[in-house]
């Protein structure tokens, strides 16, 4: 996970590969030569090391490459350009006596060293870059998998939270008591309440594995939930649902709407003797989908002022989930006025 290898200046693996490659070339050159092998090998190794340094410098400098000039070309070019002067320098460093240009044999030997460097250097550099790219891709895949598993974790958490918050024994038995009351009274409303409860429970039980659903599904399960609550508290809950039909097929994180509405009921309606209203508005706006859930608040909550520190855990988890599935294009904002609380979710239409 750590990005250290990409920025560390010292890489033991790179050094090892350079030493082995340069050593092998050295052995190759030393075989037909009557020179001591150690000297020949030390020349190729030094040349190789200089080429590696050039390769590594080109990897980090300049920090930003000019447009249309890929860094791998620059790294290859740097390696290739450095090899001939490096070869000549190493040769003269390891040779006693006259400067090399006074002796054609020596010039030829240095040229052979440079040639071998040019022959093998770029391939080693290319192989290095390829393996690095592969490692990077592996790392990316790993990170992606991690994000995905993180997403399924928070998704499971959201469902669990919803179950905890609403599909509690208290909610279930109260709702069943209403079903019972309607059945006893022979009311035709019993059937519709029972089917709303079924729809709602199906939503609270995990069924989609990818953590995504559609706006249409979200609206359906939210309607089921609100139907239950309206049957239970007809005098205290008023709601208004407006959905742009064009938004219905859109994909969205599962439970996004239900989490907002459940939050509105719990904090806006439940504590109030007189109840209140919940307004849902889903609209498309310049390439973005906007989900708005507004609820009335108890008068005394106006006390605390415009900003209340922190969201509830449910909304914090929802924000985390939005970011995991949509990245920075998604947002969850809340605002509170004297008597209303508004939660607004926005995300880019994929």
């Amino acid at each position, binding site marked *: 996970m750590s990005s250290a290898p990409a920025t560390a200046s010292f890489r033991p693996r790179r050094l090892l590969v350079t030493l082995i490659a340069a050593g092998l070339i050295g052995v190759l050159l030393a075989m037909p030569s009557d020179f001591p092998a150690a000297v020949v090998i030390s020349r190729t190794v030094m040349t190789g090391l200089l080429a590696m340094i050039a390769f590594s410098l080109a990897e980090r400098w300049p920090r930003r490459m000019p447009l249309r000039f890929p860094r791998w070309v620059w790294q290859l070019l740097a390696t290739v350009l450095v090899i001939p002067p490096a070869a000549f320098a190493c040769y003269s460093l390891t040779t006693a006596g006259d400067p090399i240009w006074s002796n054609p044999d020596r010039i030829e030997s240095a040229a052979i060293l440079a040639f071998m460097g040019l022959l093998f250097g770029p391939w080693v550099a290319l192989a290095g870059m390829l393996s690095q790219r592969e490692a990077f891709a592996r790392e990316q895949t790993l990170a992606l998998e991690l994000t995905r598993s993180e997403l399924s974790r928070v998704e499971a958490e959201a469902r669990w939270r919803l179950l905890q918050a609403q599909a509690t024994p208290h909610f*279930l038995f109260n709702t069943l008591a209403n079903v*019972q009351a309607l059945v*006893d009274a022979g009311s035709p409303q019993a059937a519709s309440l029972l089917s709303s409860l079924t729809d709602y429970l199906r939503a609270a039980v995990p069924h989609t594995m990818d953590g995504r659903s559609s706006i249409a599904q979200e609206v359906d399960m939210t309607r089921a939930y609100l139907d239950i609550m309206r049957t239970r508290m007809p005098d205290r809950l008023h709601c208004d649902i407006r959905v742009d039909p064009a938004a219905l097929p859109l994909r969205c994180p599962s439970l996004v709407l239900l989490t907002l509405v459940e939050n509105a009921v719990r904090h806006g309606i439940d504590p109030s*003797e007189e109840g209140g209203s919940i307004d849902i508005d889903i609209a498309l706006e310049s390439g973005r989908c906007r989900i708005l859930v507004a609820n009335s608040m108890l008068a*005394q909550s106006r*006390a605390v002022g415009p900003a209340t520190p922190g969201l509830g855990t449910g909304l914090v988890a929802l924000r985390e989930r939005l970011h995991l599935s949509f990245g920075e294009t998604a947002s969850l904002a809340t605002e509170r006025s004297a008597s209303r609380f508004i939660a607004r979710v926005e995300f880019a239409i994929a």
Partner: protein
Amino acid sequence: MNTPTALIADDEPLLRDALAARLGEAWPELRVVAMARNGREAVELFERHRPDICFLDVHMPGMNGVEAASLIGRRAHLVFVTAFDQYALPAFDAGAVDYLMKPVQPLRVAQTVSRLQERLHASQPPMDLATVLAALQPPTALRWIRASVGNTLKVICVDDIDYLRADSKYTQVAWRDGKGEPCAALIRTPLKDLLPQLDAASFAQVHRSVVVQLRAIQQLVRHDNETATIHLHGRNETLPVSRSFLAQFRQM
């Protein structure tokens, strides 16, 4: 024996009616004299009708069933009604408190009814639930104030109070009703007894005889002689701030 009377408190209308119907089957002589939608109404209606028995839902908006029960005390036989409550149920069982589970089952209603009939017959006083209730609803800052308005009793949520003003032997309570309309009433409890029970984060004493809810303050107008006047949101009357209490507003 007089006709036994009962009050039913539940925030869900269908469940109020269902319980009334079940009780009608199990105890035809019982007369349900009042239906309340929350704990506050339950206490107010109890004071008006004085029923023998109160059926109280544990979870209600505003004042819950446990708080209402503490205010009714031993003046009625209490039966709690709940769908589920992981804290209350064990406490009820331990304290031998009567309760019904929602959805209410006819058999259970019949058992409860026969127990109640026995007690009424034997003229047994209602059980003392104070310990059980106190364990469920630890007394924190004062939440409810009972005030007489004319010949009815009002239960006022402390959050709804704008200010309290000492008025000879009484205390004047100024509060907002459910619609936000300003109301006022006199209570017998002296201000100096109420003051220590109020949440210091919401209420401030601004004068020897005035305590104000901080959020009700619209503005504070200073005068030359180190006193000030408080103007309130949505009320015409103003409140005096005396010299010794002005210091707390220096920071504002």
